[in-house]
């Protein structure tokens, strides 16, 4: 790599890998070799770049040119034009939704421009499989400072002053948690990294581990020094094969460099990390269920009479921190608490990573200062709604978060504001919904997920979530009654109050928040037997407008139920008895003649 003048930073996050980035790598290397450029241009595989919607993506440095949606066939002309002749290929560059001209430089793309990266500081810049690149970007200096120039008390003080709060969801002050674990005397203490990311559509933790695994290891080692622990453990789900592989490799490299193991940096500090693979149950992200899972017991939450920081894993003092929390720790130590506390809002400091998904144009991973408005995230960074449809709601905080309406778009996002609005920060999932999304159906979907994932220990959660799911399903099917709404409210409150863990106590959020902000949609389903968004099939009637029908018979031929009949050159008709409301006729009609009511 010594004499290369250009680096091609090709994304090897899960999203881009499944879109074929390793095939692109082979093609690049083959073509570069063909033009004898292999000593001048290096291909470097990086972690997730964040702009997953446009994958596979590649940044050309030092020019800063950003290519997207690459395919094998693009590579020969790209190598010849750009790397042999020096003419960047406009066709493969990113065209922002709002303009027509391709924007070549990453720094000019709205998606990247408005972000501020702390947890994701190395994304797309380093090869996550090379520890020296992490070190060259300031890595392990936080640990060096913590070991060489700070006492454990001073480390805890620094984290407390930074006002860092847990990024896994609850937002508990990290410094306070560490202090509590430090106070309890024990021969063995544990630092656990919670990488059991389970929210549908959320992939912050996976991306951090894939793109910058050493940041997490360094954060864990600093935590270990602060609380007096020599044992780290990463609880990561087995469904994350790339993250697992890079994590294991990073641990191996850190051991080789003496950054994990005995006498780190020649001090008296010993710290090592092992990896525990979880089988992918949502409830295992909950602290007491995770503890049970590691101990080989059924993963059920238990009552927390004592804090885990006093008696956690194997009854020893335990600190459980989320991946993102640990990844920012080294930067706080390196740059100081005041720097971090200078970013964000009054009570929520620093930045937060969100996985922006759903009906937004630029889906991907974004990191913004706390207090950034939903509008900035969805419209400026996200580029607005796909197909320029109207924004309806954004669901924050994962399956047990809440749905926020358009009237709250200008709300600054932080822990307090989200909670006041009936949602939560959660781990940072953000699902954008447009006018074609039925909010009752959304509530049904999340309840279905939670019904599956409830461990069944508390009656309120096990039976209550199931009962709410049944009621909401009835409403979707057109069998809703007016009194169901009050019953849903009551059930929701009961499940919230009577469940032991956070899964149950937040499981009602999807119902309660949609009832709060979108009661008109529930009303329309119940009173008018109408689904305003046209989603709930039982409430739809497909018809053909005889004025618009040109009798091309395309619907007739494509209907899987042969429910459409009519003579040639005459308007077609749908037999409502046979119709299964699959919507194929509407999709194939070229004249917009199929109506849905």
């Amino acid at each position, binding site marked *: *790599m*010594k*004499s*290369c*003048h*250009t*680096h091609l*930073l090709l994304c090897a996050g899960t999203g881009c890998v499944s879109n074929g980035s390793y095939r692109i790598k082979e093609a690049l290397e083959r073509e570069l070799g063909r033009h004898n450029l292999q000593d*001048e241009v290096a291909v470097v595989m990086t972690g997730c770049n964040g702009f997953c919607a446009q994958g596979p993506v590649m940044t050309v*440095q*030092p*020019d*800063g040119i950003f290519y997207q949606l690459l395919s094998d066939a693009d590579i020969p002309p790209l190598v010849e034009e750009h*790397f*042999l*002749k*020096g*003419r960047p290929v406009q066709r493969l560059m990113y065209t922002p939704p709002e303009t027509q001209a391709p924007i070549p430089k990453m720094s000019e793309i709205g998606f990247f421009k408005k972000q501020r990266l702390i947890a994701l500081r190395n994304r797309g*810049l*380093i090869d996550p499989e090379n520890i*020296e*690149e992490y*070190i*060259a*970007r300031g890595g*392990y*200096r936080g640990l*060096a400072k913590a070991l*060489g120039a700070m006492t454990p008390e001073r480390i805890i003080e620094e984290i407390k002053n930074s006002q860092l709060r847990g990024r896994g969801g609850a937002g508990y002050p990290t410094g306070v948690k560490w202090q509590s674990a430090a106070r309890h005397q024990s021969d063995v203490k544990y630092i656990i990294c919670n990488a059991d990311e389970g929210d549908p559509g959320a992939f912050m933790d996976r991306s951090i581990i894939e793109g910058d695994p050493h940041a997490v290891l360094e954060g864990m080692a600093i935590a270990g020094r602060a609380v007096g622990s020599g044992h780290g453990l990463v609880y990561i789900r087995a469904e994350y094969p790339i993250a697992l592989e890079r994590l294991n490799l990073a641990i191996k490299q850190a051991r*080789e*460099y*003496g*950054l994990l193991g005995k*006498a780190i*940096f*020649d001090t008296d500090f010993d710290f090592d990390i092992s990896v525990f693979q979880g089988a992918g149950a949502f409830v295992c992200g909950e602290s007491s269920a995770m503890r049970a899972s590691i101990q080989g017991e059924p993963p059920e939450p238990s009552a927390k009479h004592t804090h885990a920081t006093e008696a956690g894993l194997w009854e020893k003092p335990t600190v459980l921190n989320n991946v993102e929390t640990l990844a920012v720790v080294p930067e706080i130590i390196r740059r100081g608490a005041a720097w971090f506390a200078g970013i964000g809002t009054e009570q929520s400091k620093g930045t937060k990573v969100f996985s922006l998904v759903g009906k937004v144009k630029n889906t991907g991973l974004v990191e913004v200062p706390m207090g950034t408005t939903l509008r900035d995230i969805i419209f400026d960074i996200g580029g607005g709604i796909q197909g320029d449809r109207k924004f309806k709601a954004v669901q924050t905080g994962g399956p047990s978060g809440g749905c926020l309406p358009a009237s709250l778009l200008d709300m600054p996002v932080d822990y307090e504001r989200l909670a006041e609005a009936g949602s939560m920060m959660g781990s940072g999932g953000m699902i954008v919904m447009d006018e074609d999304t039925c909010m009752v159906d959304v509530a049904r979907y999340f309840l279905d997920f939670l019904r599956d994932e409830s461990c069944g220990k508390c009656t309120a959660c096990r039976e209550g979530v199931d009962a709410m799911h049944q009621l909401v399903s009835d409403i979707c099917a057109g069998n809703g009654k007016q009194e169901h709404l009050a019953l849903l409210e009551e059930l929701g409150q009961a499940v919230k109050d009577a469940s032991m863990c956070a899964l149950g106590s937040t499981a009602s959020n999807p119902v309660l928040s949609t009832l709060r902000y979108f009661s008109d949609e529930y009303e329309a389903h119940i009173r008018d037997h109408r689904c305003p968004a046209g989603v709930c099939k039982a409430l739809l009637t497909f018809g053909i407008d005889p004025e618009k029908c040109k009798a091309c018979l395309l619907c007739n031929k494509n209907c899987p139920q042969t429910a459409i009949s009519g003579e040639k050159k005459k308007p077609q008709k749908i037999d409502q008895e046979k119709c299964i409301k699959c919507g194929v006729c509407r999709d194939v009609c070229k004249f917009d003649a199929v109506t849905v009511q």
Partner: protein
Amino acid sequence: MSKMRFEDLDKITDRMRKVMSLREGSSQAKITVHMGTCGLSAGARKIMKALIQCADETATKDVIFSTSACAGLCSREPMITIELAGQAPVKYVDLTEEKAKRIFSEHIVNGKIVAEYALAIGSEQTL
């Protein structure tokens, strides 16, 4: 790799600086070799190789190489543009490998413009 001490972090960072400054697109010097059809046929690729070799031999860090297309003056190719941080770009014309090596050692390493090979200082006005 033997066990690291505190000072080893600086050593690794120093060793990696060239690679990383390239990634971040920031450096003390930027050399652009013009590689249009005209430049390539006049030997731009040899110029690039010679310059990279100079950088390796002198262990010069903080210099990035870039390619661009025809600079517009096809008759004077091969051409390069050198930009030192905070200074106006300088264009050199009619290059050979020897001239390129001299430009590297005098302009990049010592910061002195090689006036006899230089065409102009500054860039064209655009828009």
